[in-house]
């Protein structure tokens, strides 16, 4: 029971990190403009090689 709880918490934590990463560094990059890291963080899970920030 304890193992189940501990592992569940770990999986839930990893899931939260993954979802946060997707929204903060993934879709924000693709969306561009305000709120975008502009590719500077180097953590975009989709394509960190390209600066997705819109300059215009």
């Amino acid at each position, binding site marked *: 029971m304890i193992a189940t709880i501990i*592992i569940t918490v770990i*999986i839930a934590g990893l899931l939260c990190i993954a979802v946060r990463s997707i929204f903060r560094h993934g879709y924000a990059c*693709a*969306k561009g403009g305000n709120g975008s890291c502009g590719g500077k963080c180097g953590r975009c899970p989709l394509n*960190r*090689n390209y600066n997705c920030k819109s*300059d215009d």
Partner: protein
Amino acid sequence: MEYKIALAGNPNCGKTTLFNDLTGSTQYVGNWPGVTVEKKDGKLRGHKNVIIQDLPGIYSLSPYSLEEVVSRNYLVKEKPDAVINIVDGTNIERNLYLTTQLLELNIPMVIAMNMTDLMTKKGDKVDMEKLSAVLGCNVIPISALKGQGSAEAAEKAVEYAKNHRIGERPHVFTGSVEHALAHIEESIQNAAEPENLRWYAVKLFERDSKVEDILKLPEEVKSHIDKHIKDCEEEMDDDSESIITNQRYAYIGRIVSNTVKKKSVHGSLSASDRIDRIVTDKFLALPVFAAAMWLMYYISVSTLGGVLTDWVNDTLFGGWITNAVTNALTAAGAAGWLQGLIVDGIVGGVGTVLGFVPQMLLIFFFLALLEDSGYMARVAFIMDRIFRRFGLSGKSFIPMLIGTGCGVPAVMAARTIEDERDRRMTIMLCTFMPCSAKMVIIAMTVSTFFPGNVWIAPSMYFLGIAIIVLSGVALKKTKYFGGEASPFVMELPAYHIPSFKGVLIHMWERARAFIIKAGTIIFTACVLIWFLSNFSWSMQPVDIESSMLAGIGGAAAWFFAPLGFGSWKGAVAVISAEMAKEQAIGTLAVLNGVAADAADAAVSAGIAGMFTAVSAFSFMVLNLFDPPCIVAMATIRREMGSRKWGWIAIGYQAAMGYVLALISYQLGSWMFFGASFGAGQAAAIALILMILTAVLRRPSKAAGEVQMAADRI
């Protein structure tokens, strides 16, 4: 205080290579012009307060395409503290044209003469000191690729930025032009910033409409300026823009003849020329390209890559990791449902996708070799010859080349296309090229349903090109895309042996993005798929066929039945692939509980039971040609600049994917698998006829008018 140093220069002169060298970044470098389409920032190594900015390449400060506007606007309006002007030493004359314009901006500037190693190899010599004296700024020889001289150029630029040291402006123009420019500068003193007076004056002399709009000069000032320009034009019997261009080149010619000694190469062909004689030959070009791509897929997917992926899938994830995780969870006393989540959902789903990393690495390796060597630039040139016959531009092929890595930068690369109609059409079509995520679907289909077949994988690449050409031909005949294809002038870089480090960085960066995606989007999606496939709407653990996902997939399954996979699992796989294309395989793996069946020793065994060979082919075709992942779709919407055009593009892709999958399944099952001729086959033939009609019909009246207008221009 923070200092900003911009890297400015012609396309493909080595700006991004220098940027990576100075900042320690690993930005994408390609051996063709137009790789960088947006400004990128990075901190100079050893200087926390110095930002290096990599700008898209420009031939002059008279921009034509969107990414060139980014560079010009930044240099003129935002003004960096210093500029490092990278000049390709193997093509000094053309590169110095931009230099003469940059010198008019009154920004401290250092010239980094790049590719000096190649110059030495060719036997060319430049008197750097003399050139520095003539241009009024330091000229430093560098080799960005080898990291030679880069730091020295950066240090000098930092020094100039701190001291705001601007050299004496060279005397580029003749007395009459200088006289007119002086009058123009005087006339616009109140309308422009003092440091930009010279630049604006030259632009007004050239009758640059964009600059005229910015300055909003009163009519009397405009007519006063116009009088001086006309006087010059009459005196020199030429239009003002040509006068400026000619005098710049005359000036460059003078300084090059005094400072550069070129080794005579009369009558002899360089190694690049000799290679180009074969690879760009009228008859050999296409067979050479086809052979290169076939070989790439043969090694990466069918032979070496297949063996490596089989081992990773069957032994590493299917055996070792699954067994180890199962044993560890059992020993820890974890609940059965939790074991199911981790083993079936996470290890099964994410592991299956990661299993294709070896094949990805090999493909990236070969693409990096082809790109860095300079061959892919030739391919764009070859494709232009073919595309142009169908009214398309070779410029559209550059985004398609980039699309073999990822659709997002491919869509953004369409910015290099000036014509708005061509740009929109390219955005709509470039994601038809199989990206790295789609490669997972191709690899899975080939290894499971067509083992030993060496033609299916490369044929998907060529099918992508064929569909792009056919779509282009059909779209060009509509009033929305009609007109002359954009002119395609591309400088072919000299061939060079790719650096081992560069190829490894290239591979690693792409593989890294792939692995990070597996750990974020694929991981999240697999957990979600597992949850929805194990619980009912009342949140009770149930059999998979009674789960929420079975209900959702079942509602959409009818739609995919004509494509040969009308099961709810197939429907869910297609829908989930819109999060990330490789998720189609991850979803199938989770739904089939592949990892739990380690005894089967084949990751794809569960999936194999879901499809026939022809329906698997149809599933692959649908996923290759339907809309790309949600991130690429968001990028399409953004780059289209309008919601309407975003939806048109996505709608077109959805229709194309469905139609091609339907034709593949219906005709494939009839012609090769003994199915009887029925309504599905009739529909497939009708669709082919419709496509042929769209391709072969005469252009619409409106498209023809656009064409005629373009011809007149």
